[in-house]
């Protein structure tokens, strides 16, 4: 099955993967971060962050920019939605907060670009 964010398939032009970043709580070890105490200090709970990496693929530069702009508009806007991966795993109330493309558009048999997208749980 294809992945979706807020009910829209934005990334099906190319392969992509999802990974859940570190979960749990923030902590500092002794003598790290300016702490002088002798114990591990535990702070608040980490928010859920999901990282998606992949490649947008199109037959032309113009078509690729359509794909990039569609993702960019979600990353810049306050879109809140459910993220569903290829296997039906559902993460509700996620917000896309960052699209970071690779340093070049690749023009070979097709036109493509690698990317990383971050979602945070709201």
């Amino acid at each position, binding site marked *: 099955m294809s992945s979706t964010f807020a009910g829209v398939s934005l990334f099906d032009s190319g*392969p*992509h*993967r*999802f990974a859940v970043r570190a979960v749990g709580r923030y902590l500092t070890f002794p003598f790290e971060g300016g702490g002088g105490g002798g114990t591990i200090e535990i702070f608040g709970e980490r928010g859920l962050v999901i990282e998606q990496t*992949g490649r947008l693929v199109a037959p032309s530069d113009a078509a690729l920019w359509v794909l990039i702009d569609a993702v960019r508009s979600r990353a810049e806007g306050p879109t809140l939605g459910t993220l569903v991966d290829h*296997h039906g795993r559902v993460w509700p109330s996620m917000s896309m907060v960052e699209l970071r493309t690779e340093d070049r558009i690749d*023009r*070979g048999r097709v036109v*493509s670009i*690698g990317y990383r997208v971050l979602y945070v749980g709201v």
Partner: protein
Amino acid sequence: MIWLQPRRVTIGGQELSHVGVVTVDRSADRVVVEHSDLGPHVAFADVPEQRATIVLSRTLVNEGAAGSLRPGDAGTLSFRTAPSASGAQVREVTADVVITGVKHEVSAKKGAMQTLECVAISVGGASDPISETVI
């Protein structure tokens, strides 16, 4: 691609005599490979950056025949080739090249050999840097 016994071989207008073979090797400078979350196999591959390397091998018949070409020199490589000696279907192969290597080898079996290695240049980068036309 291999051309045997090409004729009228020139680089930048400088004629190269006794060229026995010209080869073109094409290789990927950058390979894009992607996997997906759906399984272990490559889901996407492309070669967005590639290079054509041309190698000329020729026999040197005297000391002065080595010429003055050296790495970094640029010019148009041109030569003619035909499937037979009849003169029919003569083709001209041309490419803008930059010399990347000049090597020599001397042996009792082959005599003095010179090998010129070049990278073919495509103006703008979109079209194939090597053209072959029937003349």
